[in-house]
């Protein structure tokens, strides 16, 4: 299908049109910080300020906190009340790094087992990607095979070509959406050439690089090098920022809240940075900070690719720019020694 385009002035109309069929989410600072928030019907100011959200769109599929079910004592057993299925979401403006992140965590929630909560949202959702034209200083997506303005992980990809956005269908769902959307104009060959240029320029703007070559083997080789990990972990304060706000970190905790004879089971994000994450009645295998930092790095760059092929990092840069002590995973990955010569 030939690509389409839409004037930026008409984006509000477009989102309102899509709101008839979807719960539309778009970048917003309404909550006090940039998130993918329910589209309010008017404000397209994000087209000017939006770089990326602080809270990754992972939250639209794996919320920070959700009710799994409510329960009530009922004779000998319990009456269980399940939450309604997820809404049909349309996420407008997701960045290629964050779209890839969803594809990465699918490996856990979709392929390894079928997580009903995640899938009831994920299977229904339409992702509208918006190419990133000013990647941040902390971004390093190109080192992980992602280009800031290109994506195969969305349904429809938009590229900023000046006064207009070029729209290219990526998936069958994207084609279907374009077909039933009114108000889109046909793009010219010039528009397409311009978009190609924009994508290329954006790609070259990503200057932060990591050396991910042979990273699985390199990490395994230095896994027991306590000195290395202690040095790496020295300034880490063991907060949960880099994990909870990471678009690919998916660990969760489950808690019951019981009041008298009834209660709710909650699921919420958890973080391997916290000592209690691995605390068990008799011991804690990761009581020391260096072991937790090692776990975080090795899970993303070692164990995850060993299990599922992909590295569980998309170079979105959130952990780098949000860390209160500037603990920078790109420096850590680059300092993991080459496989040979690591044993002392």
């Amino acid at each position, binding site marked *: 299908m030939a690509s389409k385009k839409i004037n930026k002035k008409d984006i509000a109309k477009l989102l309102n049109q899509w709101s008839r069929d979807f719960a539309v989410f778009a970048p917003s600072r309404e*909550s*006090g*910080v940039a*998130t993918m928030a329910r589209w309010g019907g008017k404000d397209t100011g994000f087209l000017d300020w939006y*770089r990326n959200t*602080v*809270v990754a769109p992972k939250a639209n599929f794996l919320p*920070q*906190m959700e009710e799994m079910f409510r329960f009530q004592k009922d004779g000998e057993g319990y009456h269980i009340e399940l939450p309604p299925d997820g809404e049909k979401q349309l996420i407008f403006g997701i960045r290629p790094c964050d779209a890839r992140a969803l594809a990465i965590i699918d490996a856990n929630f979709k392929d390894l087992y079928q997580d009903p909560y995640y899938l009831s949202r994920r299977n229904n959702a339409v992702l509208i990607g918006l190419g990133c034209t*000013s990647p*941040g*200083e*902390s971004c390093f997506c190109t080192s992980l095979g992602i280009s800031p303005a290109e994506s195969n992980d969305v349904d429809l990809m938009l590229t900023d070509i000046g006064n207009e956005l070029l729209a290219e269908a990526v998936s069958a769902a994207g084609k279907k959406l374009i077909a039933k959307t009114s108000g889109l104009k046909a793009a010219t060959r010039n528009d397409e050439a311009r978009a190609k240029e924009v994508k290329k320029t954006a790609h070259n703007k990503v200057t932060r690089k990591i050396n991910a070559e042979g990273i699985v083997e390199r990490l395994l080789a230095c896994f027991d090098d306590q000195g290395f990990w202690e040095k790496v972990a*020295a*300034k880490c*304060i*063991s*907060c*949960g*920022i880099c994990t*909870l*706000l990471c678009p690919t970190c998916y660990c969760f*905790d489950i*808690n019951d*809240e019981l009041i008298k004879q009834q209660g709710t089971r*909650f*699921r*919420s*994000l958890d*973080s391997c940075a*916290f000592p*209690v994450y691995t605390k068990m009645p008799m011991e804690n295998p990761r009581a020391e*900070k260096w072991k937790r930092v090692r776990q975080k790095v090795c899970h993303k760059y070692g164990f995850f690719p060993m299990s599922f092929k992909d590295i569980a990092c998309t170079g979105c840069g959130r952990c*780098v*720019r*949000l860390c*209160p*002590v*500037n*603990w*920078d995973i*790109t*420096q850590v990955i680059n300092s993991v020694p080459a496989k040979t010569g690591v044993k002392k």
Partner: protein
Amino acid sequence: MEQKLRNEARALLEQGKVDWIIGFEPGSLKFTTTPLITKDKNDTERLVINPFITNNLANFLTGIKGRVGIVTKGCESRSIVSLIQDNKVARGDVVILGVPCPGIIDLSKVEKLAGKHRDELDDITREKDRVIIKVDGKTKEFPATQAIFDHCLACELPTPKEYDILLGEPTPPIASPAAQENIKKLKQMAPEERWAFWEKELARCTRCYACRNVCPACFCQRCFVEETEPQWVLPAPRWQDNLIFQIIRNIHVAGRCTDCGECERACPVKIPLRSLTREMYDIVGELFQFKSGMDKDALPLLTHYAEQEAEDLFR
């Protein structure tokens, strides 16, 4: 000042007077620094002092074994003194490398002044009471008071009172009323409005606990939020539980909080936490005429017992 610091730090390690040096080195992003915690004398060459040394390094003292030479701004010196009062740090185990601090640059404020994201700025420099921003080949100047953190505007001790080596000339407090603007606004709100304000702010808390983990006064081995019997708060980030977490944390650090502002700065979702901590700081001052971290020989406010001041219940 920087070279003097490097020399002193190197000498301390070489002479075996300390096992560790804690200071700042250049960060990996523009206009940032990062804590440097090292035993290696050669690393001291990377030590810096500049308007971006944001962290409160006293936070690292309780997690380190051995004697430490530590780069110390006024706020850090108060945190160290508070830790000494609480017997968490022995005065003899720290060599305080005092740094007079005229205020740390708040990049969020600079972004607003420049109308640009920090990534797009070419340079930010501090010249006495001016901050100079270079962007798009142009130079913009602002009074420093518009570009430094609120807690720096409120700082009562820019130059450490407790130190072993003082690097540079003492600098006076700024004492700008602007530091308390947000708190004033909150106090003027009707209770319902203020409740709604905090509901909205705390709804986005992710329970990353960065506010707690950057805080030198939060030194509990086990935080109440991690207790399961009883479970004081739900570990999930429900706003009401987030509120309880903040209130209890605030009460726990009363008399220890030095208004260093780290909790608010560290918050990834920009919850105005200092509006809570500073208010508590002022309440402590008003009720007990106590300023935390000013005198290492003073007894810690809420953990000491004096018979004559006890109410009948405790006698």
